[in-house]
């Protein structure tokens, strides 16, 4: 199977070209504030449907990796993170640019993104086969418990208001109920619309909430559309840092990579948390914490290592259990299933060649990113000047095509507009929309496994607490809820 994978990816020039294109477009989307890695994935998902499975997946791999890596360019040169995962890069990358060290910050950022990505890809390659073996023993009871645990993580995605986040998550679960029910196939909540029998498409909801909403918001904010911020100039030789200086940060690098990896594995937390968390961890364990925020490479290394380490981490639960940890992997899941590759414990037996193909594509994409982002830096920096008033309308057109091509149904196109308006209402009212996506994806998994487990036991609920793994996950879920509530209560006081 590994041989097959090498043939499909490494020895296939077309596939390599697609990874290259994916990385470059990903970097562009990642670097321009207002466009995101998720948006790049959403827009190119329908294009990947028409390709050979491995080629389509390789394109998505390139986009994901490039998108996360591009955010540092604008985080340093504009002091605006190009993607949410680069928030913490601004803390030290910005001050470095003030001191005239923008070039060094960019070089180190690119280099350390590569290292963080590499560590996490290796972790993915070594952990997932074993995890898949473990999950083989899982029954519906365990999957139900894992889904419940994953749902409790919504609380960490809720931003300012926990309770609004929970409501959004529940609303997402409610949306997942539409269509043919699992187990008995009852048709529910379709209101006589045959389009709704299959339920809502994840892609459609994602396009609406993440792309269309942003474009409408730009309309409300059009007098701020011209970028007034100053763009820093930079000069850079090589990667701007000597191997010795870089390696003197080894503790920080390993710590940040592990934080990114862990955050990636846990469902629902995502890149922005990982960069913030590893930044504060690096500050906490540093010998000179007072220098953080004044423009030192340590801060850039912490943030950029961690956000790229999320990539490999987030693919671990996706491949072995079909649980997407963030928006990007949710789109990835769509890309896999459309090609008949169903993630889960059996994926190594059933579609092993594609899994190894994903590993190889990730490694290739990581190397391409290291070379291209550095070599094409001048070009990527220039692209930051493309006015948004030309860019966003074209993105909107691509959104509509994306929605149309996922099922060739005009109904999906209308849904995109409706979800876009819904996303706008959520934004105005201060309800976060990411919990809704996670709720939507986990909702059907929760219900299906709950019902299957109960059918096996003839309606005996004790199965969830008598099976040890299920019990452990439910206990962690209870613990995580209790801790979040405690944190909220102490915050109020």
């Amino acid at each position, binding site marked *: 199977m590994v041989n097959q994978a090498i043939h499909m990816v490494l020895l296939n020039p077309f596939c390599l070209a697609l990874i290259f294109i994916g990385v470059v477009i990903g970097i562009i989307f990642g670097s321009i504030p207002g466009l995101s890695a998720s948006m790049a994935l959403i827009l190119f998902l329908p294009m990947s449907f028409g390709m050979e499975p491995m080629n389509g997946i390789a394109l998505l791999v390139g986009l994901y990796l490039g998108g996360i890596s591009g955010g540092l360019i604008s985080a340093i040169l504009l002091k605006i993170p190009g993607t949410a995962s680069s928030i913490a890069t601004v803390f030290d990358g910005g001050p470095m640019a003030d001191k005239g060290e923008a070039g060094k910050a960019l070089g180190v950022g690119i280099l350390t993104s590569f290292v963080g990505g590499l560590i996490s890809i290796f972790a993915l390659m070594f952990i997932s086969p074993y995890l898949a073996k473990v999950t083989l023993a899982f029954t519906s009871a365990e999957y139900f418990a894992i889904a419940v645990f994953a749902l409790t993580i919504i609380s960490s995605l809720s931003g300012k208001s926990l309770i609004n986040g929970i409501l959004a998550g529940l609303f997402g679960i409610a949306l997942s109920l539409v269509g043919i029910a699992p187990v008995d196939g009852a048709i529910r909540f379709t209101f006589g619309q045959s389009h709704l029998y299959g339920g809502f498409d994840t892609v459609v909801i994602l396009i609406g909430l993440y792309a269309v909403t942003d474009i*409408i918001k730009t*309309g409300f904010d059009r007098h701020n559309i011209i970028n007034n911020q100053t763009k820093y100039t930079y000069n850079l030789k090589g990667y701007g840092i000597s191997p010795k200086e870089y390696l003197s940060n080894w503790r920080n690098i390993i710590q940040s990579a592990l934080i990114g990896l862990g955050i990636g594995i846990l469902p629902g937390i995502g890149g922005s948390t990982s960069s913030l968390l590893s930044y504060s961890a690096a500050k906490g364990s540093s010998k000179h914490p007072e220098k953080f925020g004044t423009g030192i490479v340590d801060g850039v290394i912490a943030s950029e290592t961690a956000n790229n380490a999320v990539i490999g981490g987030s693919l671990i639960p996706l491949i072995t259990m079909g649980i997407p940890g963030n928006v990007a992997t949710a789109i990835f899941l769509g890309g896999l299933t459309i090609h008949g590759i169903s993630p889960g414990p059996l994926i190594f037996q059933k579609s092993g060649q594609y899994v190894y193909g994903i590993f190889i594509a990730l490694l290739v994409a990581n190397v391409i990113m290291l070379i291209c982002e550095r070599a094409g830096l001048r070009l990527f920096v220039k692209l930051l000047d493309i006015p948004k008033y030309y860019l966003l309308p074209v993105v909107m057109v691509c959104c509509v095509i994306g929605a149309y091509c996922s099922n060739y149904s005009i109904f999906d196109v209308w849904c995109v507009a409706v979800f876009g308006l819904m996303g706008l209402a959520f934004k105005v009212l201060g309800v976060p929309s990411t919990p809704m996506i996670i709720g939507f994806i986990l909702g059907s998994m929760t219900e299906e496994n709950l019902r299957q487990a109960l059918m096996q036991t003839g309606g005996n609920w004790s199965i969830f607490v008598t099976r040890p793994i299920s019990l452990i996950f439910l206990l962690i879920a209870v613990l995580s809820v209790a801790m979040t509530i405690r944190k909220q209560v102490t915050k109020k006081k």
Partner: protein
Amino acid sequence: MSSKKKNLIVSLVFMAFGIFLFVESMGIKHMMKNDVGSAFFPKVVAVAIIGVSAIRLVMALREPEGEKKASDNDTMGGLLTILLIGGYVLAFQPVGFIISTIVYLFLQILVLVPKEKRSWPLTIIISVVAPLAIYGLFTYLISSPLPKGLWGY
């Protein structure tokens, strides 16, 4: 809108939705003997939504009457954008991809572009070239057809 007002709206809208969900779930028939049925989980979710939105309501009522935040939103720009997107998705199939997209892009760019930056030639070039390029890419390169509409293109 003050934060109190927003939270009140959130709680009431979600509560109404929860009640609606519960009522709708009551009509789902129980089909298999051993199964909890397709109405069970929706009812659990509905009760949870009603419960959480009730907490939201109580919390919102206790909130002090906050000050209104002056919004610097450009209502006209937003509404026009919504209108254009609505029109575009409705016209997408009956009118066809190329024509509806040219019209949409042209108008949307006009809405977003600040007056002092407006450039007619560039606007026209983008709104004609982009749809044609995308159409070519999808129909010929990835052979995934886009709606042709009334006049066949």
